[in-house]
C-alpha cells in the first residue's frame, strides 16, 4: 500500500540502495567518535577516520541520492548501527523534525554563513560557519585544527603542517567571492570578506600563480 507519508517502507529502492551504500563504507565502528569539524579533541589520533569520512563527505558533495529519504522503520539492526552516518547525501528534511521552531530556524539561518572549505589534495571538504569568527586569525586557527589530521604525503613531517602552510609556504588561502572571482584571503576587511565569501580553497602555492602576492601579517 502506498502511503503518502513521510515514512518510506524499508523495501523502497532508494532506502535499500542507500542503506547498502552506507554499510559498504562503514565509517569506523559504531559508536566510535567521528571527527566533527570543530572538535579537536576528537580529531586527535583519528587520522584513519578522517580519510574514510572524507570519502563520505565527497559523496555528500556530489549529491547522490536526493530522493525523499525518510525514516526507515523496522530496519534490521545492521543498518541502525551506523549511527549518524545512516542518512547519507542530502538528507531529506522530514516535516516537523527535528522539532526546531521556524522562528528560531529563520533567525539562525540569517546568523550562520556556512561556506565549504576545500584543501588541495585533501579527499574531503569541510564546512565552516564564518559568523562565529571575528577575524582572519580566528578563522585560520580553526582551519588549522580542522585539517591537522591530513596531509597528502606524510602525516608526521612537521613541515607539512598547515600552520607552516598558511604562512605562505605550501598553501595559499583563497576564496571565491560573490562575483565568482578567486581572491586572496586577507585582502579585504574581515566583515566584507564574510559577506562576500562563497567558498574557501586552500590552494597549493604552485597553482596560485597570478593571484597576486599573498601577504598576511
Amino acid at each position, binding site marked *: *500500500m502506498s*502511503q*503518502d*507519508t*513521510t*515514512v518510506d517502507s524499508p523495501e523502497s529502492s532508494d532506502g535499500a540502495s542507500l542503506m547498502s551504500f552506507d554499510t559498504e563504507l562503514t565509517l569506523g565502528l*559504531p*559508536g566510535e567518535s*567521528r571527527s*566533527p*569539524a*570543530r*572538535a579537536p*579533541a*576528537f580529531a586527535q589520533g583519528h587520522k584513519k577516520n578522517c580519510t574514510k*569520512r572524507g570519502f563520505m563527505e565527497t559523496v*555528500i558533495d556530489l549529491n547522490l541520492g536526493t530522493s525523499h529519504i525518510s*525514516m526507515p*522503520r523496522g530496519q534490521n*539492526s545492521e543498518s*541502525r*548501527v551506523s*549511527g*549518524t*552516518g*545512516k*542518512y*547519507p547525501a542530502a*538528507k531529506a*528534511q*522530514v*516535516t*516537523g*523534525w*527535528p*522539532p*526546531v*521552531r*521556524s*522562528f*528560531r*530556524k529563520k*533567525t*539562525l539561518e540569517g*546568523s*550562520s554563513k556556512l561556506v565549504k572549505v576545500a584543501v588541495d589534495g585533501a579527499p574531503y571538504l569541510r*564546512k565552516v*560557519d564564518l*559568523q*562565529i569568527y*571575528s577575524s582572519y586569525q580566528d578563522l585560520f586557527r580553526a582551519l588549522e585544527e580542522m585539517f591537522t589530521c591530513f596531509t597528502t604525503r606524510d602525516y608526521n613531517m612537521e613541515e607539512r603542517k598547515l600552520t607552516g602552510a598558511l604562512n605562505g609556504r605550501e598553501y595559499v588561502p583563497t576564496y571565491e567571492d560573490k562575483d565568482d572571482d578567486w581572491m586572496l584571503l586577507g585582502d579585504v576587511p574581515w566583515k566584507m570578506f564574510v559577506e562576500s565569501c562563497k567558498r574557501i580553497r586552500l590552494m597549493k602555492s604552485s597553482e596560485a600563480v597570478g593571484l597576486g602576492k599573498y601577504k598576511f601579517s
Partner: protein
Amino acid sequence: MSYSSLPEDVLEHVFSFVQSDKDRNVISLVCKSWYEIERWCRRRIFVGNCYAVSPRMAIRRFPEVRSVELKGKPHFADFNLVPEGWGGYVYPWIRAMAGGYPWLEELKLKRMVVTDESLELIAKSLKNFKVLVLSSCEGFSTHGLAAIAADCKNLKELDLWESDVEDPSGNWLSKFPDTCTSLVSLNIACLGSEVSFSALERLVVRCPNLRTLRLNRAVPLEKLAHLLRQAPQLVELGTGTYSADLRPDIFSNLAGAFSGCKELKSLSGFWDVVPAYLPAVYSVCSGLTTLNLSYATIQSPDLIKLVSQCPKLQCLWVLDYIEDSGLEALAATCKDLRELRVFPSEPFGDEPNVSLTEQGLVLVSEGCPKLESVLYFCRRMSNDALVTIAKNRPSMIRFRLCIIDPQTPDYLTLEPLDVGFGAIVQHCKDLRRLSLSGLLTDRVFEYIGTYAKKLEMLSVAFAGESDLGLHHVLSGCDSLRKLEIMDCPFGDKALLANAAKLETMRSLWMSSCSVSFEACKLLGQKMPRLNVEVIDESGPPDSRPELPVKKLYIYRTVTGRRIDMPGFVWNVGEDSALRLS
C-alpha cells in the same frame, strides 16, 4: 453555624484569596450558591484550547473577568505540521469580549491568528486595557500595533514573544502619545524592521516604571548604551544586534552603561554577537538569574567566560556551541540552576559540528541540585547517562530530550533507550512534561504508563512498535492532558479502546501514524463531546479509506464542531456522512 449561612460578600472576600483555576473550579462545585458567588467574582480565565468553549459561553458564566488567556493551534504547529489556514482565529473572541468584557485589562494569546482588525477592535472597545501578550502569534502587522499604541491609554505591557509580525513601513512606536507613561514591559524582539530610535528613546524616558525592554535586532549596539543610561532601573533587557566595529570608545561607553543597571536580572538578544563586546556585561553578571544566549553564535570559550561569572543563574538558554566543556563550567558555577535549554546550531547537518554529547547533561545533572527543567538537543545518548540523570535529579519536572537523528540507539550498547527513559519516569515522580527521542520500543511506553502518574504532556516521534505502546500511555497516565505523536506505528485499536480517556484530556495529535479513517469516524460517532478532526490537504480522506489518515487532531469541546474549518480539515462526527456528501 453552617458555611452556607455566611453572607455572600464574606464568601466572596474569602474566594478572592483563591487564585488557582483548579481550586476555583472545585469551589464552584460545592453547592449552587457557591457556584453563583464564585462565578461572579472570578477575575481571570484560562482557555487552553480556544475551540473547547465558545466565547459567549465563557462570558455568560463569568461576567466579571478582567484577564483572559487563550491558546489556539496545537503545539506541533511550531514545527510546521499544521497547515496555513487551519484556524485559531482570535477575532470572534475579541468581538464577543468587546461587548461582554468592556473592562477587560489583560489578554494573553498563544499560537493564535490575530488580525489588525482584532487589534483595532481591542484598542477601540476596551477602555481599561493594560496587558497584551502575543506569544507565537501571526496574522497582524505594525498597523495593528499602532492602534494599540495610540488608543490604549493605560497600556502597561506589550509583549510580542516570537510572533510573526508583518512590518510594512510605518512608525508605530511614535503612536504612543506623550501622555503614555505607564509602560512596564515592552518586548519587540521579533520585529524584523527598524523602529524609530528617537521614538523608542522618548518612550523609555517617559516611562519610569519600565522594567522589561526587549529590543529587536535592528537596534544597533552603539545606541544601546544610550538607552540603558535612560533606563537604569531595568530588570530585564534584550539587546539588539550585539555587533559593532571594534572601538574602545564604544566598548567603554557600553560597559559604563551596563554598570549603571543595578537591577538587571535577565539578559537576552545577543544577535550577531562579537565576542570582544561580551565583557561589557560582566558588571551585571553577578546578579543575573536568566540568560538567553540561544541566538548567540559564539564558541565555547567565550560562553564559559560569561557563564562562569553568573553564580546566581537560574535559567540558561544557549546553543550547543557551549559544548560539554561549557556545561561542565556551568555545573561548577551555577548551583542555583533550575532550567537549561540547549538548542542545536545545525539541526539539519549530517554530522555533529560541536563537541556536545550526553556528558554535558550528565554533568549539569550532577552539579546543579535544583535542576528541574531540561530541553536538550544532542546527537547521542546512552541508557547509562539517562539512568544517572534520573537518579541525580528525582525532582525533575520537565524533561525534553531531542536526539537529532530519529531512532538513534544507545551509542554504547546499541540497545533502545527504553531503560533510560524508564528510569526518568520511575525516579522523577513529579514529572509533568516529557519528550522522547532515540530508538524506543513499546517497552518505554509500558514504563511511562506504569510510573508517570503526574505526567501532563507527552511528545513522541518515531517510537514504538505497536498499538500496545499507545495503549500503555492512554490507560496508565492518570494526569495526561496533552499527547502529541508523529511517525509512530500506532493505530485504531488503542485509540478506540481508550476513547473515554480522550475526554479527560485537552487534546491528542497524531500525524503519520496508522489510524484509519474508519476508526476516526467511529470515534467521532461514539464520542459527541470530542471533535475528531482529520487534516488532509490532498483531498477528502474518505476517498481513500484504505490509507491511514495523515494528520489527526482530537480535542474535547462543549461547543461541537467548529464553524471555521478550512477545506482541508474534516470533522468526522455524527453527521460526517452529511458533511462529506
